[in-house]
Structure formats: structure tokens, C-alpha cells
């Protein structure tokens, strides 16, 4: 039962099928205590299905899954007692107040009332909702609801916190507020498991991640490793008029390690973007605009799957 030295979560050939469709198609991964582990991929990649199997909210179709040393098929309640779940769609209890949401949730875990009251107070402070504790849930903003959901997921002092698309649908300010809370949890040594289709979220929060596409894992590593392995250091983005682009005829050949054509731009994968830009200009290619940037996980994803993360 006790996680001593092994991974907290271990999946081997884990598969989820809905009728004939394989949402998760035989994935392997390990999540170790104290790490922030991410599933990065577009919508429909199988991230949420994987997460739901780990949370014991969806039966495993095939393969092996062990969560905190236990089998979700037979020990769901015992596993759920030690997980904190932040779902993609908020499912707070809208009929009761902010504070009652936490107190009531603690009851489902059989947490004694005095302990529940103390944790509720601390957690509402932690997610900066102390002043709204007697408020109804409905009038809260999207960011506040998500923060309350995070507080709710922490009420049982979980061994692993599962976050499914924690900032999807939030405005930039609310996203940063969520990231800030998650950093603090990381610093306290919490194990975080999150899915996201935002590469910036994955880069900022994850120590290690897997890139998923169409139910499969296509790469695994730390954000820095993945970029080093699958991309050059810099990317030169060129925007050109359509007629110029149609008449290029190999004018960009030999300038970059790899050239990626996208509907609105051409991306050149190079070590030194500024130098390559000079070379492009020297060849007399008329540009609408040019941008040199560092490579990101988006480039890794593009390289591995041939399509972008967010359409």
C-alpha cells in the first residue's frame, strides 16, 4: 500500500476504448513522488481519458494501471481517498456556499469536523477566497471557481493532485493566479499531474511531460530535453505575400536545418535566427515581416505530429 520507493502512478500499455474507438491506445508512463508531470497534446489526444482512468472515474479497458500502489479496478475508494481532482469542467456544488463546498467535501472523505473546519479556513486563505467564504458559488468569476475547485481538491491532503486543463477558458490574469498557486504547491513538494494543450503552461509547470497525439505518447522528457532533442535553439518565422511564397522556388534551401510550411507563415529551424534572417534578406526574398524566437514545445509537437497544438 505505502509508496516507498516506486512510482506513484505506473501505466503499462494502458488502453481506453469507447466502442471501437481507442481514446487511449496503449500508453506507458511513470509518475514519481514530488514531480510535476504533464500530458501535453491537442483536444482529443486522450489526455482527459487517461486522467479519468487514474482518478477511477473511468474503467480501464486494457493494460495495467497502478495508482499509489493500488488497482483502480478493485480499490477505487481507497485510491480516491488519497487523490485531489481538479476536473476540466467545474462541478462545484452550486446550491451551497463557498465554505460549505469545502466542509461538505471533507465529509465525503470522513474527515472529522474540527479538522475540516481548520483546513477549510487555511485553504480558502491559500486560494485567496477567505473573504468570499459565505458567498454563493454561482456569482464567482471563472478564475475564482477554479481556485475554489483547487482548494476543494486539497481538502484531503492528497498524495497526488490531478489537474485536467487547469486554466482552459480563463483570462490571462486568472491563469497567472492559478499558476502562482500551483507553483506554491510544487515548492511544498506536492506531486502534480496535469493535462494541458497550452505549451507555455507545460513549459512553466512541468518537470517532465509526455506529448500525446491520437491516443499515443509520441515523446517524453523534460521541456528543455524535448526542445533540445526535437528542435533547434531558435526559430525564424517569416511572413510572405502569397504570390511571393508561390514563387520562392527553393530560395530558402540550405539555410535551415528544417523548414516548416504553415498556412500563414514559414518557420526556419536554425541555431542563430538573426544570421539566417540576414542570409534570407541577402537572397532578396521580399518579406512582410520576420521574427526570431526561441524554440518551444509547440515546435516539438509540430515536428513530431506535423500539426499544431491549438488550431
Amino acid at each position, binding site marked *: 500500500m505505502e509508496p516507498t520507493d516506486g512510482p506513484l502512478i505506473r501505466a503499462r500499455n494502458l488502453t481506453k476504448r*469507447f466502442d471501437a474507438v481507442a481514446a487511449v491506445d496503449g500508453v506507458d508512463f511513470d509518475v514519481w513522488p514530488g514531480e510535476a508531470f504533464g500530458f501535453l497534446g491537442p483536444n482529443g489526444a486522450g489526455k482527459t481519458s487517461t486522467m479519468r482512468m487514474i*482518478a477511477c*472515474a*473511468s*474503467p480501464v479497458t486494457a493494460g495495467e494501471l497502478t495508482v499509489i500502489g493500488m488497482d483502480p479496478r*478493485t480499490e*477505487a*475508494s*481507497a485510491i*480516491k*481517498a488519497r*487523490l485531489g*481532482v481538479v*476536473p476540466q*469542467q467545474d*462541478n*462545484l*456544488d*452550486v*446550491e*451551497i456556499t463557498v465554505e*460549505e463546498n469545502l466542509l*461538505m*467535501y471533507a*465529509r*465525503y*472523505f*470522513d474527515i472529522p469536523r474540527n479538522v475540516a473546519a481548520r483546513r477549510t479556513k487555511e485553504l480558502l486563505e491559500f486560494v485567496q477566497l477567505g473573504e468570499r467564504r459565505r458567498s454563493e458559488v454561482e456569482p464567482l468569476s471563472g478564475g475564482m471557481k477554479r481556485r475554489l475547485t483547487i482548494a*476543494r*481538491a486539497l481538502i*484531503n491532503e492528497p498524495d497526488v493532485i490531478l489537474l485536467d486543463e487547469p486554466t482552459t477558458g480563463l483570462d490571462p490574469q486568472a491563469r497567472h493566479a492559478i499558476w502562482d498557486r500551483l507553483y506554491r504547491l510544487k515548492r511544498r513538494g506536492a506531486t502534480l499531474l496535469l493535462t494541458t494543450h497550452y505549451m507555455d503552461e507545460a513549459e512553466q509547470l512541468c518537470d517532465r511531460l509526455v506529448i500525446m497525439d491520437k491516443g499515443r505518447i509520441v515523446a517524453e522528457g523534460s521541456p528543455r530535453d524535448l526542445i533540445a532533442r526535437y528542435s533547434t535553439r531558435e526559430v525564424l518565422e517569416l511572413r510572405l505575400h502569397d504570390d511571393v511564397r508561390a514563387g520562392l522556388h527553393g530560395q530558402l534551401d540550405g539555410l535551415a536545418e528544417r523548414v516548416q510550411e504553415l498556412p500563414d507563415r514559414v518557420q526556419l529551424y536554425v541555431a542563430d535566427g538573426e544570421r539566417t534572417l540576414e542570409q534570407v534578406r541577402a537572397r532578396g526574398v521580399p518579406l512582410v515581416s520576420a521574427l526570431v524566437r526561441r524554440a518551444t514545445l509547440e515546435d516539438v509537437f509540430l515536428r513530431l505530429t506535423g500539426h499544431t497544438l491549438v488550431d
Partner: protein
Amino acid sequence: MTSLALMLPSLRRSHHMVERNLVVYRHVWMVIFSGFFEPLFYLLGIGLGLGGLVPDVGGLSYGAFIAPGLLAASCMNGAITDGMFNIYFKLHHQKTYDGILATPMRVADITFGEMQWAVVRGSLYAAAFLVIVWLLGEVVGPPMLLSPWAVLSFPAAVLVAATFSAMAVCVTTFLRKVQDFDIVIGLGVMPMFLFGGTFFPVDQLPDAVRWVVQVVPMYHAVETLRPLTTGTVDGSIAGHVAYLVLTGTAAFVVAMRRLERTLVK
């Protein structure tokens, strides 16, 4: 596959659902009353008002004849409000159960707890109704609750509430859109209320219709409550009680399995 032990609800965990509903109703306690007044108004309007113009039915005053049916309707109202409307919205709109299922709670615990709450609500209405009938007394009200059998009226009403609750939860698992309620209420609940032996004896009905009526729970609820409240008990009550226990249990098992399939997929 899932073993029986995993399917059986835990009493302790199911009580968390009852507690949750108590917390909710602390905020909206007024709505609890609404379901109680409808049968009371029927009793006063039809039982006492119209009853003065109607001869005795099977040796009972008309008020005494319809009061047990209205008692059954009280149980049904509580069960339907919580077992159908509230559960439907928690299931499909508020996703409340998805949140609760991320804790050690299981579908069986939730179903059992929600049913208990619906039973509590139905029983509250039944108790209030019985108190009113008793207070009205035999002078202004129907002559009821005079025989020793009357002691069993309330436990019987709780059983009726439990059967209706289980059936309400079960029916709810088949509803896919809000409009489906109109069909259930209009073609199920209303006819059952009017023709289930509440306002007139079912032998007034043509044979084919009577046969249908005798299958629905309302008929058996009324036939259980009428002898106990009016002191006219005979052996046939055992069959009606057995019907309520068996259909209630079957409905509960079906409801639990269907909710499992809806929530854990």
C-alpha cells in the same frame, strides 16, 4: 467484473448525501412546504367540500375514502420532487455527482443517500398530513385514525415514500431532456393520482383499465394506507405491502446500475 460487495451501498457514506441535502435545504427551507399543501387543499376542497354531496363509499364517508389516497400523494410528491427533478439537474446540469465521485463515495452510496433523502421528504409530508387529519377530528374531518391499526399508518407511509422514491430515481435515469418530465408527469403521475383508487374505487373502471391501474404503485399504496387509517384491515394488505417492497427494491437496483453506467464510463 464488479463484485457484489463493491455494488452494495455503505450506510455511513450514504448519510453524507443526506447531510449534503440538509445543508442545501437550510438555504431554501421554504420550498419544503410547497409539496405539502397540494394534498391538503385536495382534502379540504374535494373531501370536505365536494364530499358533502357524495354518498358514503364502501361504508366510509367520502372524506375518509379519499384521505388515504391523498396521503399516498403526499409521499409521492416528496419523492418526485427530490427523486426526479433535483436528481436530474444534479446529474445532467450541475454535474454534482461527478464532483462527489472524486471522493471515496461510490455511485451506490450516492443513489442510496439520495433515495433516503427523498424518503425523508415524503415521510415529512405524510406525517404532517396525518397530523392534520387527526387534528381535524371526526367532527369536521373524515372519521379516521380511530382503530389501533392507525399506529401503523406512518410506517406504512414511509414504505410508500420509499417505493415512490426508488421509482422516481429509476425513471430519472431514463430521462434525457427537460421536456421528458412533461411526459412522465402528464402521462404517468397525473393519471396515477386520479385513477389509482384515490378518488373512487377502481372497480368503477372498465376491466381493461382496471388491470392497468392495478399494476401501478399508487393503487397498492392506497390499498395499504386505506385499511390502516380507516381501520378496515383484512389479509389482502399483505399482498400490497409485498408489491411495494419488491417493486421498490427492483427499482432501486435498476437505478443504481443505470447511474453507474451514466457516471462511470
